[in-house]
């Protein structure tokens, strides 16, 4: 008998393993909230656990009574129905007890909320601006002031996430949780994080910081965090913001203050260099290679890998007059700089040479064989020229 039951259990295990084999490699079975890496996130975790235990105990008591009644007060066991229909005493008791429990939960919650609300005396201020579908971070105050980062979904995730891409999400550990450029911040420093938006409402959430906050166009919300451990922390946009809502992760690298200042210096030099690219001249092949890379990073989610967009939502670039007609070069460049309708403006994010290579690439890819070459200089001029885009 023992052998049979052992066989049975190992068979069951085998079925389970087979069922979940493709997933078990990397998927985890996390059941509970993350404790996070800030004092606040840990207090939130504690509050969560306390409430969870309170409702669990209430549940066990209440359902326990109920099931006892279900098993004992049934007709098939010969139970005769009692006649009572009210009791003022018990009704008062079961009004007072829940009220007391609620008050005892509300007091610590109030204290915690007041603590979270206090953003004063922060050393560094960063503004996170959401747009469809990426995050822009401006370092407004403190060490690193003046740095701007654009952070969008990493190229590998973008490629895998295309429908019928033929690629397996299992091959990418941080699928949909990675960005091309993470935000970098120092540990043990009070950081004020502002959230706002350029277009629709987004929400900025890093579970390890313990909170999320909406990013609302025209309004600025503020929050704070003191990160206590170095590491890479990942989160997501949590307010539906259109087709790319699932594709705008948030990645934060927390480093020591020394590493942070080193990063700031490096970043400032790189930022200055990227501002000054209008004199770079590339040949057709270079433009196509660079253009394809930038296209994949910036344009692919809407216009798709084949340039055909998504019918009804995102227009096709293939054969589009803007991308094909010789008279539309200026319009093409400016549409990328200023955006149009749903299409966001890329002028601030992309350098002249980046824009030049996207324009050259899209004017020559997928059978748009115009042979046009657009150089960085033309983009620099388009920035200064009068707008031809409505």
């Amino acid at each position, binding site marked *: 008998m023992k052998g049979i039951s052992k066989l049975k259990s190992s068979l069951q295990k085998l079925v389970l393993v087979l069922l979940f084999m493709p*997933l078990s490699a*990397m998927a985890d079975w*996390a*059941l*509970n909230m*993350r404790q996070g890496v800030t004092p606040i996130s840990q207090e*939130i975790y504690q*509050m*969560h656990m306390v409430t*969870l235990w309170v*409702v669990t105990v209430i*549940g066990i008591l*209440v359902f326990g009574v*109920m099931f006892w*009644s*279900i098993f004992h*007060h049934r*007709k*098939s066991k010969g*139970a*005769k129905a*009692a006649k*009572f*229909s*009210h*009791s003022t005493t018990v*009704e008062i008791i079961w*009004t007072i007890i829940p*009220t007391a429990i609620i008050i005892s*939960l*509300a007091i610590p919650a109030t204290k915690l*909320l007041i603590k*979270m609300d206090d953003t004063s005396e922060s050393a560094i201020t960063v503004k996170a601006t959401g747009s469809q579908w990426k995050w822009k971070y401006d370092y407004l105050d403190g060490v690193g002031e003046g740095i701007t980062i654009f952070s969008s979904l990493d190229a590998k995730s973008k490629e895998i996430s295309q*429908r019928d891409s033929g690629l397996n*999400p299992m091959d990418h*550990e941080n699928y*949909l949780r990675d960005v091309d450029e993470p935000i970098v911040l120092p540990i043990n420093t009070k950081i004020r994080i502002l959230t706002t938006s350029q*277009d*629709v*409402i987004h*929400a900025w959430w890093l*579970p390890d910081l313990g*909170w*999320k*906050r*909406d990013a*609302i*166009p*025209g*309004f600025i919300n503020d929050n704070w965090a003191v990160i206590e451990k170095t590491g890479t922390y990942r989160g*997501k946009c*949590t307010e*539906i913001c*259109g*087709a790319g*809502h*699932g594709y705008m992760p948030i990645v934060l690298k927390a480093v020591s203050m020394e590493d942070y200042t080193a990063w700031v210096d490096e970043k400032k030099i790189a930022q200055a260099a990227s501002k000054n690219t209008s004199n770079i001249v590339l040949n057709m092949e270079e433009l196509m290679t660079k253009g394809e890379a930038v296209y994949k990073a910036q344009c692919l989610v809407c216009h798709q890998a084949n340039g055909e967009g*998504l019918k*009804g*939502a995102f227009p096709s670039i293939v054969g589009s007059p803007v991308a094909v007609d010789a008279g539309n070069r200026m319009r093409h460049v400016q549409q990328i700089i200023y955006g149009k309708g749903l299409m966001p403006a890329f002028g601030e994010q992309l350098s002249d040479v980046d824009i030049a290579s996207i324009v050259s690439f899209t004017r020559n890819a997928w059978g748009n064989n115009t042979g046009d070459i657009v150089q960085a200089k033309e983009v620099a001029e388009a920035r200064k020229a009068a707008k031809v885009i409505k």
Partner: protein
Amino acid sequence: MSTLAHDDHHDHKPTGLKRWFFSTNHKDIGTLYLIFALTMFFVGGAMAMIIRAELFQPGLQFVDPQFYNSMVTVHALIMIFGAVMPAGVGLANWMIPLMIGAPDMALPRMNNMSFWILPFAFALLLSTLFMDGGAPAGGWTMYPPLVLQTGDAFPFLIFAVHFLGISSIMGAINIIATVFNMRAPGMTLMQMPLFVWTWVITSFLLIASLPVLAGGVTMLLTDKYFGTSFFDAAGGGDPVLFQHIFWFFGHPEVYILALPAFGIVSQIIPAFARKPLFGYASMVYATASIAILSFFVWAHHMFTVGLPIKGELFFMYATMLIAVPTGVKVFNWIATMWKGSMTFETPMLFSVAFVILFTIGGFSGLMLGITPVDFQYHDTYFVVAHFHYVLLTGAIFALMAAAYYWLPKWTGFMYDERLGKIHFWLSLISSNVLFFPQHFLGLAGMPRRIPDYNIQFADFNMISSIGGFAYGISQLLFVYIVIKCAMGGKKARARSWEGAKGLEWEVPSPAPFHTFETPPKLTKKVLESLY
């Protein structure tokens, strides 16, 4: 037999198209509402199947992200406005006149109109699936500025919502007029069955909240087409204003879906415990307090928009306070079972499951109400699990219980009890496999309304999808049981359940086309039998 023949004689009714399109009979209109609701339950359910199929594995397999968002949006609108609300109104139509001894609803022609608006409203809404730019995809909450990016579907969405609102308001007016004017002589308000009470209170919620929604969506319409900037910061407006307006409607709406469910189980549990409802008066007061409080908690849906701390504290306290009257109701149901003589036919099984699973949804609701912790839960699958526990294993389980409880009265036949129990157990297990793991997904960090996810969420999503498919298929069994019951079976007695109380069990089964043409005499004995 002689009573039946006698009733048949009075049972002359129009036939064919005329009977159904021009009906002013509360029973026929009730039937129309119920059939419509069941149809919409499957339309919305099909969309849920698409959602769960796409989420079965990471990666995009079946639909584009935009279409996925449309499914999320339209699924919610259909289930709320097309399935649960019409099912509740259908029950109210059928049962309230029978329960209070009235010959029909007070405003029978308006009753016809409030039903027939619905198919047209949903034709408008569903037609958007075939439009340029696709169906609305900004979530059923219709938050601007995102909703303003909707393509040709936008005005159809707004007018569909307007029509649904008009229909519901007319239904609500009708119920209030009926209950306040047409009770059998001698029946005081505090002698009404609890189902009637919950519907009166629900009607007031509808009348108070739906015009606010209508105003809000009209402002969306003018923002989009007439150059206003109610919700556009660039023009001096505020996108968050819409959220305040929406949830001032939206939170009472939650109770519009839930209160009739409370009323249903308050009828069924005493019937199968063969014991009067415990704490009738406190049930009425608890329902009324929940309804009043529901107008003061709306911003708990918006804790993360950046409310001032005083606002967050106020809405946290008010939200937590709702747990008290809700707790009273749960305790009353359990006290009704206590020392009863219980049997567990399908309506009772669904009702008991309702009490447990709705309470679990209430527990997660209390957790969500605690503002600082809500900053973690908000807009994750934890919320999805929460509201599906209160709406699917809550409201819909109660509606199923009601259908089984009153089917004998509607059709004149007993449904197949064995199949009913199978349907219950399948629904119970599959819905928990479907929604319980979503708590874990939310806590682990999975946001809601995303078509694709990291592999860390893969296992629980697959389990959830399996539960979803099983739940969906199980509901086909319900259709079979209902059709089978309507076609024939064991004849139902006037009092189809041994312990069932109330005037609706005093008329024959099936209930004749016209009932209580002369008001029933409420002797002391009859009144005692009411509850």
